């Protein structure tokens, strides 16, 4: 039986590190428990992003979160990428390294999207084997996140929660449970999010993700562009109690507000660590993301879409 959180510490309430917040962070050194970085935005950087990261890593615990491992792809694993990932993890003393249960491309292409897998025995065998290989290269357990998805495959022979649970146990890896993704997919695919959470091996959950999403009426999109809605907070409460708590991180990747707003959002998590099922009254509650009209669909970009932009004098 693995240790809770696979033996990792509960880092507390963290925020996704975004370049727009660099000036604020350097000037104010806010009292944040920890930061999560998008690995790809730093692994090749020889400029300001990397310099700021190294400075922050002196003071704050850093967790690495990637979007390009493509653990489920039938293409060979990218050895150069994995070596760079390990080098960055060593350099910033990353607490752990995570990516998503997905594939991002095949035939040497990268769609830069987190594409869903068919949940079959074949896929399970394939991904388990690759996770083991990656863990050997990284010399640490991999932590994998459940993605948001917008299609399901007729070929799937098991629900996502069963796939995630079996993958974690068989590959002996950690899980990053994104409760917003569970909510988004539960609406898109008509399942009970509580059933999902209850099937996840609690002791393998190393980290939680929280985020906002966009409601398009017929489906939800994981845009990371707003506040966490109440049903997602309630799922978080449930997951927190099942697992005994784990490092919790808020992702805000589009229409990013000033840092204190993002930080305040993740601090709300404290309200949901209590067992009582009373909603806090000190703030406005949002029971669902406001519905966005279909005409704007083209402008709704699901996570991830982040690059580092040049600063020119």
């Amino acid at each position, binding site marked *: 039986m693995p240790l809770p959180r696979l033996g990792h510490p509960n880092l507390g309430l963290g925020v996704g590190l975004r370049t727009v917040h660099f000036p604020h962070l350097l000037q104010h050194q806010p009292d944040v428990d920890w930061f999560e970085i998008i690995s*790809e*935005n730093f*692994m*090749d*950087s*020889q*400029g*300001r*992003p990397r*310099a700021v990261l190294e400075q922050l890593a002196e003071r704050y615990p850093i967790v690495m979160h990637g979007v*390009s491992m493509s653990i489920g*792809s*039938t293409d060979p694993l*990218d050895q150069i990428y994995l070596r760079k990932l390990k080098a960055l993890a060593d350099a910033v003393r990353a607490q752990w390294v995570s990516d998503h249960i997905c*594939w991002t*491309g*095949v*035939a*040497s*292409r*990268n*769609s*830069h*999207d987190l*594409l869903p*897998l*068919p949940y*079959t025995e*074949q*896929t399970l065998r*394939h991904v388990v084997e690759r996770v083991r290989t990656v863990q050997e290269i990284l010399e640490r357990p991999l932590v994998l996140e459940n993605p948001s998805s*917008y*299609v*399901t*495959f*007729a*070929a799937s022979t098991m629900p996502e929660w069963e796939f995630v649970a079996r993958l974690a146990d068989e590959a002996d890896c950690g899980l990053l449970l994104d409760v917003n993704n569970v909510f988004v997919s539960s609406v*898109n*695919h*008509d399942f009970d999010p509580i059933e999902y959470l209850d099937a996840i091996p609690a002791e393998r959950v190393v980290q939680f993700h929280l985020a906002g999403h966009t409601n398009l*009426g*017929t*489906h939800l*999109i994981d845009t990371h562009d707003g506040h966490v809605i109440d049903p997602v907070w309630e799922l978080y409460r449930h997951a927190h109690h099942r697992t005994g708590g784990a490092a919790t991180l808020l992702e805000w990747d589009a229409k990013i507000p000033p840092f204190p707003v993002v930080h305040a959002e993740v601090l709300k998590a404290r309200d949901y660590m209590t067992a009582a099922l009373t909603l806090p009254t000190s703030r406005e509650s949002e029971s669902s993301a406001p519905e966005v009209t279909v005409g704007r*669909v*083209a*402008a*709704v*970009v*699901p996570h*991830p*879409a*982040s*690059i*580092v*932009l*040049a*600063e*020119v*004098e």
Partner: protein
Amino acid sequence: MSIPSPDLDALQRWMQSVIVHAGGVHQGIVSADAQAEIPLPVEQIDIVINPSTSQSSLERLAVYSNAYKARLLEVLISEYPALVHAVGEEAFVGLAGSYLEEHPSRSYTLADLGRAFPAFLAASRPPSQTEDGSPDWADFLIDLAHLERLYSEVFDGPGTEGQPTLQTDDLLRLSSEEWLTARLIPAPCLRLAEYRFPVHDYATAVRHDQDPPFPAAQITRLAITRRAYMVRRVAMEAREFGALSALANGLTVGDALQRVLADRSVTIDDLANDVRTWFRNWAVAVYFVGVQ
């Protein structure tokens, strides 16, 4: 009709062909690439993709198709803001769409996505619209794209921060013999570019939320580098740029100055004065990191 459950590899190749197809998912499904993996008439898409209670299988696949295009477009729009301003968003979307068709990402990082965009614009430019062959609108766009890409590469590439750089004293210590045969080591972030328009002013105006007009053609020589993690660009007149380029290309100081002297309008005295000023400015600007 029943088809056997496709294996993982076929399903991935099929889905990728469908969602990256420029014509949308319907055309993607009937495309030869997708049919080679899963031969499937569009009406039978439910055999592969489940519909949901509120969306058809096609509508659900289209979420990925739309996201693919929107995401990559957003990346290019943010990397090339001045180019977007110059051509307008609609035309930019057209250009970027053709570019992405020809240069789909094969990299783990989005930082590589726009790398070949300036070269793509140069290769697909319309014939010159001026009778005397003077620079036109297309030349302006190509130069502007080139500069914006340089900014990205210089910003996040190797630099000189925290490392020793060439000081004026390092040169003063050399004998005149050593001085003429010395080669200077350029900073790894130094780029020298010659453009047909003042694209740097245009790019800066756009980044300051101004609305600059299409500028008149004017030979523009820029030294672009990074200091204190910020990209800096300096416009230069021809002689200074010529000397700097020669040195950055590995010529000795003597050979580099010889080149400038080849321009008969320059006297030795003028040159000596200029050289002093240049080297002082170049040391401050950190164009070189050492002497060889």
